């Protein structure tokens, strides 16, 4: 059994295509200025429908994290212990990633990170993060 892979739909296709080009894009509401992620059809702040896609700098900090010792699926068992983090990007959006290239014991809230793209078994790479 393989890992769950992103299956883009009409709302998220732009995001995943941008990942292939090495960009992490979020939505920006032209009416109220709200930035949001994950992608939606409308703005979660003002419910307007006029949304732009903007690239993130990919820079942010660890907002929270956990070191997983008990994998939920067989396909993740070889990876334990692995780090799941919620990262806060400079543009004010948060995303879930795995933190790579760091000793799990050394991870801390507030740690500066940068997003990078990790190949998967599927068509689209996954945005992940590492210390910067």
């Amino acid at each position, binding site marked *: 059994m393989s*890992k769950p892979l992103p299956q883009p739909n009409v709302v998220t296709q732009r995001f995943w295509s941008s990942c292939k080009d090495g960009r992490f894009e979020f939505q920006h509401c032209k009416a109220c200025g709200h930035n949001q992620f994950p992608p939606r059809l409308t703005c979660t702040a003002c419910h307007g429908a006029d949304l732009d896609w903007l690239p993130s700098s990919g820079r942010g900090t660890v907002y929270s994290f956990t070191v997983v*010792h008990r994998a939920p699926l067989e396909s993740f068992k070889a990876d334990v212990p692995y780090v799941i983090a919620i990262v806060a990007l400079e543009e004010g959006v948060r*995303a879930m990633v795995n933190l790579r290239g760091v000793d799990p014991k050394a991870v801390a*809230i507030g740690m500066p990170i940068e997003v990078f793209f990790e190949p998967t078994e599927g068509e689209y790479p996954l945005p992940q993060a590492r210390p910067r």
Partner: protein
Amino acid sequence: MASKAVITGVADTAVGKVDGSTSLGLQAEAAAAAVADAGLSLGDIDGVLCGYSFTEPHLMLSSVVSEFLGIKPSYSIAVQAGGATACAQVMQAAALIEAGICRHVLAVCGDNRLTGMSRDKAVAALSEVGHAQFERPYGISVPSAYALVAQRYMHDYGVTLEHLAGVAVAHRKHAMRNPKAQMRQPITLEDVAKSKPISTPLRLLDCCLISDGGAAVVISAADAARDTRKRGIGVLGTGQMNTHEHIIASPSLTDFGCKQSSRQAFDRAGVTPADIDVAEIYDSFTITLLAELESIGFFARGEAGPAILGGALDLDGQLPCNTHGGLLSYAHSGAAGGMFHVVEAVRQLRGEAEGRQVASPELAFVHGDGGILSAHCSLVLGRN
């Protein structure tokens, strides 16, 4: 204040490892026992609200349950709000009664999550609540999502691993007084600390059980309740708040909708948290209860942990809480897990809690949390 909706019957089945049990069988057993507890017959039930099942899922579970019971309710629907399901069933039942649509509503849940599926399968099934594109590819599980809350909560409010362990120990202490509880051997803070890591900072003993079990309550119109067998317990106030589903979309990792849902329930009942004599609050993980106790306002931020180590949740403490042993030590069988909290609150208010009875409680608070602190439903119950 006299309420229009009163709880007239409660029951739960044996819990833990119940060999030969089925989801439908546990629901039917709990339903029949709750109706008998009320002194009614199944034919008196005109509304059925059921939860959901992992082992026998169905698109129309409440029709399946009614068909199995041999009843023909004039109102029937399944409720799916994760851990908030049981409280949401009671809230919905009270609304149906207040609207004059039903006279006696059966709210029933049950699942054989322990013997009906492997532990691996239960954990995998629960991980499917993660966001398909933006969480599940990262190996998220329900414990990991709560662990993300725990890590941030500890960072912001000085909560320690020992505070979390104290929550587990307090629940085991309650369960040891309850002959029906799944886990009754004593545990220490050290046992929790040494239990195997699941997803840091949560360890095995920070996590709820996986159990078989069913539970049901009957909610009746006050005028129809006069003929029932026992003192009716009033549904004095109800409230809900729903802020997100996935943890990546949560507005906060430390402040949750239980604050607003409990405020609604307290306001509608005309009481304050300080008036509550006994509380039964969703405890899927130690951090769940700690965050709820502080978000609801039973304790100031950062103060629940030290208070719990000092015995605040014990029978004679500041807030006797989860007196049956909770999801951490009594049992957790899906939607029924939350219904055990409702059943225990009613037993406490009726004075039927035997060796774990709180001294003459008048008001109880019950709370359910579904998802990752996503869907919240609160109840204030009282002796009418």
